[in-house]
Every structure is written in C-alpha cells, then in structure tokens.
C-alpha cells in the first residue's frame, strides 16, 4: 500500500512538550489553569455541555458520586439529572441506549467505569454503534463518545488495569483518541463531543492526578493529529497516554548517555496521523513504538508495519516494539514488571542503535 494511503496530510501537528516528570513553575497566565488530568476532563465536559444542550452524560455512578474517579464531579448538580444520567449497571445497556439517544438527536458521552468492563458493551460498540451510519448510508449520524479509563500503574485488581484499544482500533466506523496531558484532555474531550462519529476516548487513569497547565482560552488542536513532544535526531519513540511520560523519561536518560531521542505523542489511535512519525523516521532512521497493551496484533504492530512500508529506505534498524507481555495483566504485585518502563524502552533504544 502506498504512502498516500496512510498519511493524514491535512492534520497539522504541534511541537513542544507540556508534560514530563520535571517540575515546572506554577505558571498562572491569564486563562491558564493548573489542573490534574481528571479535572481537565471535567472542565472540558462542563464546557461541552454548556456549548451544546444536546450533550448529555451517562454511566454508572457518575451522578452524585461524580464517577469512581470523580471525573464528572459536580456536573449533575450543575446540569441536572436530565443531562447527567446515573444508569443501571449494564454496559451494553449504556451503549445501546446511547445509540437510540443519538438517533433522537442527542450527543451522549458514556462513561465505562474501567477498561476491563467494556466488553459487556462490545457488541453494541462494534456491531451497532460503529456500523450504524454505514448501515443507514449516511442518513443517520452517531455522535457518541465513550470514555474509558485505561491502563495500569494504579495497583488495582483484575480487569482494572487493561489496555483494550486494539480491539476497537480494528473496527471501521470508530475513532479512537487518548490524551496524555491535562491540556489535551481538556480540548480533546470537547472535540470528541463535536465529532459526528463515535469517538472512543481512552483516559490514561494513572495520569488522572497529575497536574499540568491548561490553556482555557486557546483553541483546540485537530483531534486526530499526532505531535512531536521532544525533538531528537537518532531514535524516534512513539506512544500514547501514560506511555508518553515513560518515553520522555527514557529520552532524558538516553540524552545523558549521549543518544538524541525524538518523542511523538500519538494522541489519536484511529485514524493515526503518520505525517510527523514518518517525517521523524526519515530524520532519525530508527523507530520504537511503545504501549502498555500486549504487543500481538496491537496498535504498535500496525504502526511498525505501516512505517516500514512508507519509509523503508530511511530505516537504519528494524522497527521495534516495547509492550506489555502477551499474558493477562498480572496481579498488581507484578505490574511494574509487566508494564514497560524507561529501562525497557532504553534497552530497545540500545538494540536499535546497535543495528
């Protein structure tokens, strides 16, 4: 398949990192707030609901409790029970009724409580929601957002630390995005609410409590644009969600060892904005794709294959993947072993450089 098939040339990208582990000054410029990622989503939802009376929230425990992660805290009190629906405990029911509400002209934002609990809704997402516009030959739109807290690093029990993105990325008709910073979370949730297509909004739950500056008065970057968050010249690292923080740590460590690493935050998993990735690989000649998900048939596999097709002659080394293992997410006592950390990324950097 030719490069034009996979390159989203319309999507601009933006350089410059706002995240990372390094402490930053508490910048409080006009219109800028220092918010944890969960609060940034909350603020974005509040804005989206204020902008469009058809946006409504539905999910388990999202009303008075504000969701198990408090992402919707205060929204029912502010907008009422007709805009923030505490639903019965049934994921298929949440997605299936959201489809009917979308047919009626609403723009439902569904909260799935944890990544591993999305599967009771899998049929409604993949066989119904994703195909509804196509089945109707464009006569019906499906502006439904599905928010999914995902990923590990929180020491939780089974089904609470998974990364199920690939199941949905494989399904035509869905759009998948994942913010890694509070600023992106604030803007991307609003853009997701504006989309006329279903958007799966994967929230890196281990980042919920990390603060970052949120530009409340700016404008949204394109929802499906990837972004260079650290420039470098020898190796390109690509990841999304909480993995971006790990990649930035790895880049810092690599720099100390004398290797210049570029880091790209995917932001969008479907479609993937390949322009910055391919441009970067043409410069560095080396690509490492990292994610918490198991590597077999993953978003990382797809990127590896596509970049190999598109930039084969620029590659100095095979595209490498750093991923969770192809085993069920382990008991939390093993999660630091299972989840890729900066050292695992650096091991791949060393292999790529040695080629």
């Amino acid at each position, binding site marked *: 398949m030719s490069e034009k098939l996979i390159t989203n040339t319309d999507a601009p990208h933006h350089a410059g990192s706002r995240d990372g582990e390094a402490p930053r000054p508490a910048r409080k410029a006009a219109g800028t707030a220092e918010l944890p990622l969960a609060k940034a989503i909350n603020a974005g939802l509040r804005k989206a609901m204020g902008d469009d009376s058809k946006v409504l929230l539905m999910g388990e425990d999202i009303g008075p409790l504000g969701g198990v992660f408090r992402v919707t805290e205060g929204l029912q009190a502010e907008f009422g029970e007709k805009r923030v629906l505490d639903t019965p405990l049934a994921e298929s029911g949440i997605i*299936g009724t*959201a489809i*009917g509400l979308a047919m*009626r002209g609403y723009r439902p934002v569904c909260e799935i409580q944890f990544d591993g609990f999305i599967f009771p809704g899998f*049929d409604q997402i993949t066989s119904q929601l994703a195909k509804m*516009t196509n089945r109707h030959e464009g006569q019906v739109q499906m502006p439904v957002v599905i928010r999914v807290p995902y990923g590990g690093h929180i020491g939780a029990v089974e089904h609470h630390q998974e990364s199920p993105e690939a199941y949905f990325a494989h399904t035509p008709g869905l759009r998948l995005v994942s913010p890694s910073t509070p600023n992106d979370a604030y803007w991307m949730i609003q853009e997701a609410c504006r989309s006329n297509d279903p958007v799966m909004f994967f929230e890196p739950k281990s980042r919920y409590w990390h603060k970052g500056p949120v530009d409340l008065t700016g404008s949204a970057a394109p929802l499906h644009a990837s972004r260079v968050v650290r420039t470098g010249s020898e190796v390109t690292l690509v990841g999304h969600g909480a993995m971006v923080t790990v990649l930035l740590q790895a880049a810092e460590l690599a720099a100390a060892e004398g290797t210049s690493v570029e880091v790209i935050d995917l932001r969008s998993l479907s479609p993937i904005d390949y322009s910055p990735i391919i441009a970067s690989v043409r410069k560095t000649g080396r690509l490492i794709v990292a994610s918490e998900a198991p590597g077999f048939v993953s978003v990382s596999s797809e990127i590896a294959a596509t970049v190999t097709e598109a930039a084969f002659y620029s590659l100095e080394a095979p595209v490498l993947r750093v991923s969770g293992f192809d085993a069920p997410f382990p008991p939390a006592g093993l999660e630091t072993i299972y989840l890729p950390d900066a050292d695992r990324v650096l091991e791949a950097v060393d292999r790529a450089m040695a080629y």
Partner: protein
Amino acid sequence: MAESVEMVQLLSADGVMQSGATAEEYLPYIEKLSDDELRQFHRDMVVIRRFDVEAANLQRQGQLGLWVPSMGQEAAQVGSARAARDHDHIFPAYREHAVAMVRGVDVLGIIGLLRGTTHGGWNPAESKNFHLYTLVIASQTLHATGYAMGIALDGLHATGDPDKDEAVIVYFGDGATSQGDLNEALVFAASYQTPQVFFLQNNHWAISVPVSVQSRVPLVQRASGFGIPGVQVDGNDVLASFAVTAKNLDEARSGAGPRFIEALTYRVGAHTSSDDPTKYRTDAELQSWIARDPITRFETWLRSRGEGDAFFAAVDEEAEDFAADIRTRTHELGTPSIDKMFDHVYSDPHPVTAAQKQWLEDYEASMGSDS
C-alpha cells in the same frame, strides 16, 4: 410452575367475534374502525403474504441469497403496526415485512438486503419512522429504549395530547427474550419510565429451538419482574393485536411507563430459506397452527359482516400485481456502487477511507482499459 395466563382474543380461530369481560375491554378500539380500515387489515395481510411467497420463489430461483419468511405472523404485525401513530417510532427485528409495508416502506428494500445490494434499504425518516432491520438478536431493543428515553427527555410524551405524544414500539421474538440486551432494555425502560411498547412475537421457534427451552413460564410473565405491565394476545387475531397494541401504546405515550405485549403466533415457514423445519418440528403442530390462520379467520369474519366475493377477488388481484412488480424490480436491482463501501463509514471526513477509496479507483482503472 407456569401459571395460566389469560390471552386476549377478539376473533376465534373460526372467525367468530368473542364476548366476555376481556373482549369488552378492547372492543371499543375495534368499534372505532371504519369499514375501509377493516378492509385495509385484510389487504395488508394478503398483499404481504403474496410478497412473502414471491420473495421465497425468487430465492429458490437464485435471485436472493436468502429469504426470511413472515408467513403466519401477518395478523400480529398488521394489527400492531396499524395501531401505531404516524409519528411513533418503530424498531423492527428482521421478519417484520408486514410492519414495513404498513409504514410505507418500499419493501423492495427488504429484497435488496437479501440480494446483497444494501445493509439498509430505506430511510427511516422517510418511512414513517420505521427503523432499519437489526440482525443481531435483541440489539434493537436497546436502541428503541434509548430513543424512547430521548422522547421523554424532550418532554414529548405525557403532554395530555395523544396526537402530540410520541411513543416507540420495538419488535422481537421469543429467542430474543434470552438475550442480555432485551433484559437490559427492560431494566432501562422501567428505570426511566419510557414511552415504549415491547412487542414480542412468540412464534414458538428460535430457528430449531422451541420456546420451552427459552422459558419455563409464559414469556409475558417476565414483564412483571421488571415492573412492567404485560398482556398476552392472540397474535393470529388481527383485531385483538390492533386493540391491545393501541391501548398499550396510548398508555405508554400518556406517561404511564413502558408496556409489554406477548403475541402468540407461529412461524409457518422456515426460519430462513436455509432452514429445514421438518428436522425439528412435527407436521401435526404445523397443521394445528395453519388451522388458526390469521387471514382465513379474518376473511370469515368480514364475510359474516357482509363483505362479498368482489372485494376478496380485488385484493387477490392487487396482491398478484404487487408480487409481479416486486419480481420485475428485483431483476432491475443492479450491483451496488463501490462508493457504498466507503462513503458512509464515517460522517466526518476520514483519511483512511478516503485514501483506500482512491486507491481502489486507481486500481480498478488500471485493470479495466483493455477488457
């Protein structure tokens, strides 16, 4: 374990109007019908049965990949569909050919589904809100419930004006009662008190599995467990199906909450043209239901009221013409455009489908010039 349930029946199997307390409750809905409206019930049932036969023939002749027969279920479908108001929304499963026709769908769209020219076939917004067929069993019950939640959020039920109040009716079969989605739909409907009628056509067979495997109790009894009033109706009695549905739809639209109707009927034909019902059910059972045929019964009653041969002959001729027109237009259905594959995967522009469409166009063009 199963308690007896009183089934609403207005016309006996031999076409005699019933009396008694239950009938009295529903007869006012029938008394309001004009002679023309009653004749239309017969016309609907006869035409859709002839359509069903024609489509089955087309399948056997290789013109359709598959056919889904509706024979035997005409009264349940026509009665309930005629009870809905034009502004109501109807969510079918995939055997509701009579409901589709009553709502003004060009049923060639159903032919297109089974000939492989479309996954849709009609625009619900232009078909008196008759939504698309849904093939995954019970999935549509949740869409219907969500839609009804939307009506309630819009405040367009319980206004006190039945001409303005909207309602939803969703069709499903006995097999669907075992699915999680229907049970979740009933939970949501009860929680949000949706203006909605759940219309179960119990045709006694989910492909080869009898309803006794789906449930140890009459299915209508399931409703009360969800806090939803339920009623069982003779689904081969078009008058009872009409009256019971009209009453329950109006209760739902008035704000009384969701309703559940179990219509007892029978799938006289196979599940689909790929099925062989002689492998799993007896001829005696089939014959016992043919003896309760909905069209014969209603014709008997119409004749008893003085309807003459001329009317029935005219309807038969109309049905023949309808079938001939379907046959002609089936042959005229072309190959779907490649655009259909790409253009509506997403509503907003999408780089992957756009690029793959372009690639395919270039590929096809590169192949086609010298053939």
